[in-house]
């Protein structure tokens, strides 16, 4: 089975700072790590390889330093790694990013499953995974919490919902975005770390992946960020005390006041 895992390198912080002028992430001085949700995608890819055989190729689009994220993925069991990196990709929104990644994936050749984390911890859009499947015109299942069965070119998975989960069957090849409930990622092994250190990372630029120059980078990005702001924190609730009849009357009045 050919498994592709798409990852992103993100700043290692939950407190993301935004440059007020350019509206982009401030990465200076913050250590970069693999997007936490992508770590589960990597683990699931390696587990699928252990269950069904085959190989796991990990791919990222990013600056040259994203190479360290790819090496880390190799240290926990991925076989090959591709870094898609070019100044021309700068300023990509989720549309251009997913287009670029889909071009690189096409170049990789045949595959059975693409795995992504459900979203990145910096942008939080959750759009790149679905975007890739759209560009490749393959089925997608988001928020996968379990890959139950893979046989006869079909996969049965559990998709997490707010109330529980759906069980879905999809033809392959397909793309899944995974949630953290899907597995417990392993620690790297020393042998894996040594392999990662000496592994050859394939590096592709825009010229290597047969992409439309108008569809990549800032030019290929229809999104214009006007302003980024943190929504004000919710005010604390109010607890109404007293006997049931009185409390319910008070509650109804309060609801009327805020005009539902």
């Amino acid at each position, binding site marked *: 089975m050919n498994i592709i895992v798409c990852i992103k390198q993100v700043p290692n912080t939950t407190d993301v700072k935004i440059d007020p002028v350019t509206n982009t992430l401030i990465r200076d001085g913050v250590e970069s790590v693999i997007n936490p949700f992508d770590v589960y995608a990597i683990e699931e890819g390696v587990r699928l390889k252990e269950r069904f055989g085959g190989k796991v190729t990990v791919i990222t689009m990013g600056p040259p330093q994203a190479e360290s994220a790819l090496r880390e993925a190799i240290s926990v069991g991925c076989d090959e790694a591709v870094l898609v990196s070019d100044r021309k990709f700068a300023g990509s929104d989720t549309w251009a990013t997913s287009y670029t990644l889909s071009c690189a994936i096409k170049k990789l050749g045949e595959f059975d499953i693409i795995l992504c984390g459900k979203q990145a911890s910096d942008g939080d859009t959750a759009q790149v995974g679905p975007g890739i499947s759209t560009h490749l015109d393959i089925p997608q299942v988001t928020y996968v919490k379990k890959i139950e069965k893979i046989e006869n070119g079909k996969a049965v998975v559990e998709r997490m919902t707010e109330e529980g989960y759906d069980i879905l069957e999809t033809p392959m090849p397909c793309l899944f975005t995974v949630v953290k409930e899907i597995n417990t990622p*392993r*620690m*790297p*092994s*020393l*042998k894996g*770390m*040594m392999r990662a*250190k000496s592994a050859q990372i394939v590096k592709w630029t825009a010229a290597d992946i047969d992409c439309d120059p108008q569809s990549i980078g800032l030019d290929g990005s229809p999104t214009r960020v006007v302003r980024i702001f943190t929504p004000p924190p919710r005010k604390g609730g109010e607890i109404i005390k007293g006997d049931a009849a009185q409390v319910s009357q008070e509650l109804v009045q309060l609801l009327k006041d805020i005009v539902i």
Partner: protein
Amino acid sequence: MDYLFNEQQKMIQELSRKIAQEKIKPVAAKYDESEEFAWDIMKIIAESDLFGVYIPEQYGGLGGGITEMCIVTEEFSRACGAIALGFAGTGLGTFPILLYGSDEQKKKYLTRIAKGTVAAFCITEAEAGSDAGSIKTTARREGDYYILNGTKQWITNAGEADVYTVIAMTDKTKGARGATAFIVEKGMKGVEFGQKEKKLGIRASATREVIFTDCKVPKENVIAREGMGFIVAMKTFDSSRPGVAAQAVGIAQGAFDEALSYSRKRVQFGQPISSFQAIQHMLADMATQIEAARALVYATARMIDAGAKNVAKESSMAKLFASDVAMKVTTDAVQIFGGYGYMRDYPVEKYMRDAKITQIYEGTNQIQRNVIAANLIKESIKAE
């Protein structure tokens, strides 16, 4: 301070630190309370290849030495000195085979240990502590077997380990020259374990009696040869003491980390207590002592790895100094935490409880001083 570790050693440090911080630290208090052996953590350590760092490559290890063992032990102990013992105690049980085992024994046992089989070393008895010469456990030759009888006490990893290296008397009339080292497996008939001891510290480490009742051990399991038992034991300790010292450094560092971070957060008289010179000087002394201990540990480890013949003095110095530092630093860490430090809801009292054993086991610090002095005098006589 930079100890000039090579690439592989840095990798080992990075990985063991990651496991310690992400996997061991969050469960240290839980296992301290329950006194259970942390098998889930042992599994993680095994899968990360770290059990094999000091085992030669031809037996499935990574081909490192005492330095690598110390790096791992220090990092694990920084999170939990007791869980670290699952690894370090295995090292102690493995050294007799590593140092004196035959190729067959190494193939059979080291390959398993490199993959995560836990080992234990059995020398101490109720009446044979510092006076290891008064061992009463016997091994009687009968055809192709030895029959072991006796009770070993306070054995680290007992019951959890699959492989035990045991010192028993094959000829009592010969005194120290009548002791022999054996490899005994958990499943062999006549091996039983006593109650789990209730301890002050390192509570997640299993400490039990190992009881031999007509235990039949094949003669192939004799390490080196009959009568070599004490030499095997002493050389084992020479190699393992830096490991205890590394454990002590890790415990001290872990307590120091907590104390430093707490002193910056704890506000009294309107300012963090780290702004008071009284606390600053304590922190400075603690950090300096830890660094000095660490330097001694890795200098000794390097010396052993470089193939030095007699390392008894240096390895005793490392163990003596580092364990005394651990006791001092962890006590001061509790002091910096004040009343909170005395509470089990906070992590520092555990470091203090865990530190104490490092002054006692693998030779009390009084015995270490004897060893150091004896070697000093011997060297002086030689130089004349």
